[in-house]
């Protein structure tokens, strides 16, 4: 893998990831993740659900970021994405970024998880634009007001809550575009997303539960083949955003919502 992509996958990437536990903190609070065995199960389930969805969305975003450099390609090859979407935002690349972002919203019923995804998307966008300037990242930034700056559009926009697109683009969308900006393929974007879906949570568990970091590293190594398989599957999805995986994890959804209401929170999510 190229060094540029290693930089993007690195946990020391200054994009705020260290403050997100991927559900491990509320799971630990609930007594559901307590030791290495329960952490391993948690990571495997996270990978198969949220990890797969994130990886597929990141791959789609990467693919679109590569093609959106040329608007002609967008119209010819991907304009069809909008036929089913009422022409929201026009048929340009920026309108399509909004559609892809809405695809993340639709797969993220938990408001707490949407907020966490947008916070991480904003942070990643900042570092990615500084590091690998790319028109796709500019397009994402141009339409990303913060949480409180409610996007006011037509009547339909007013029906939607502040979370839609407001608050910055979703993390997998930015991750895919950043991977493209760093010269990566959709398969590589999916790999970084799938990898991050377990490493961030594992690192949080080490900090929260005082688990042996060597044992946790070994548990991640055991998962490595599964991470690759999820990435391969995610990248092999057809180029139809509506059909991308939408595997839910009701437990993660509930934990994310409970987390926001707990008295003491060390992690954002």
């Amino acid at each position, binding site marked *: 893998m190229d060094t540029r992509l290693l930089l993007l996958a690195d946990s*020391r*990437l*200054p*994009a*705020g*990831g*260290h*403050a*997100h*536990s991927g559900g491990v903190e509320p799971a630990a609070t609930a007594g559901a993740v307590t030791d290495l065995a329960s952490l391993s199960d948690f990571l495997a389930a996270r990978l198969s659900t949220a990890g797969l969805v994130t990886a597929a969305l990141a791959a789609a975003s990467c693919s679109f970021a590569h093609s959106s450099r040329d608007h002609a390609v967008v119209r010819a090859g991907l304009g069809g994405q909008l036929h089913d979407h009422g022409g929201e935002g026009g048929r340009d690349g920026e309108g399509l970024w909004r559609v892809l972002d809405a695809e993340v919203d639709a797969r993220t019923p938990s408001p707490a998880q949407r907020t966490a995804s947008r*916070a991480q998307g*904003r*942070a990643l*966008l*900042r*570092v990615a*634009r*500084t590091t690998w300037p790319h028109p796709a990242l500019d397009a*994402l*930034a*141009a339409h*990303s*007001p*913060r*949480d*409180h*700056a409610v996007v006011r559009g037509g009547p339909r926009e007013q029906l939607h809550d502040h979370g839609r697109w407001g608050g*910055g683009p979703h993390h997998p969308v930015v991750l895919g575009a950043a991977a493209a900006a760093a010269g990566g393929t959709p398969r590589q974007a999916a790999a970084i997303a799938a990898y991050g879906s377990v490493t961030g949570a594992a690192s*949080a568990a080490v*900090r*929260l539960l005082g688990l042996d970091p060597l044992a946790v590293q070994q548990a991640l190594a055991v998962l490595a083949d599964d991470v690759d398989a999820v990435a391969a599957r995610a990248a092999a999805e057809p180029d139809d955003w509506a059909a991308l995986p939408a595997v839910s994890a009701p437990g993660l959804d509930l934990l994310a919502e409970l987390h926001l209401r707990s*008295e*003491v*929170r*060390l*992690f*954002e999510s």
Partner: protein
Amino acid sequence: MGGMHDHDPHPAAPPVSRALRLGIGGPVGSGKTALTAALCRSLRDELALAVVTNDIYTTEDADFLRRNGVLSDDRITAVRTGCCPHTAIRDDIAANLDAVESLEELHRPLDLVIVESGGDNLTATFSRGLVDRQIFVLDVSGGDKVPRKGGPGVTASDLLVVNKTDLAELIGADLAVMARDAGAVRGERPVLFTSLREDPAAAAVAEWVRGVLREHPHPHHAPHPHAAASVNEP
């Protein structure tokens, strides 16, 4: 927060102006939150202020700030650090930058944003990418050897505050020793001794902050090094 209108220290501020970002760091229990509250009380009538906290933020902490009448809730943002307070102010400042910029956008124009770190050890310092100036807060109960031990907070902060001087006698800490040792490692950089219990306004520290704002008007007019990458820039 009306003070900013009749006392605008930056009359010629270009539209991209931003507030001075002041970090307040130091070990657990040294009085960072109390100092933050004191500065807000002293400065809120003359400056437009906001605060980002990095502490374990419970309702109790929020109540503390509220009870002390520091600022309205929408001027205080809590950042969670995932058990790594130093990471959030030094290695990966993303969440703090985001919080600072959100506050600035919501309350524009601000003169001063205080970023209060979570309690940490003597090696914790703020990244220059996050703050323009930083205060490191020690308290005498840690012992009068602490300044001699040094560490980046003690040696490199723009202002070292030694708090709880009212306890010095009680615990046998020699303030003169602390002043001498701090001076030895800090050179010209100032050290202030305070007792927030006896001086809840932290008058001397507030005056130092005013001086920073007077003497260094430029940094908070210039775009921040990361502003170009900020998501709200078209």
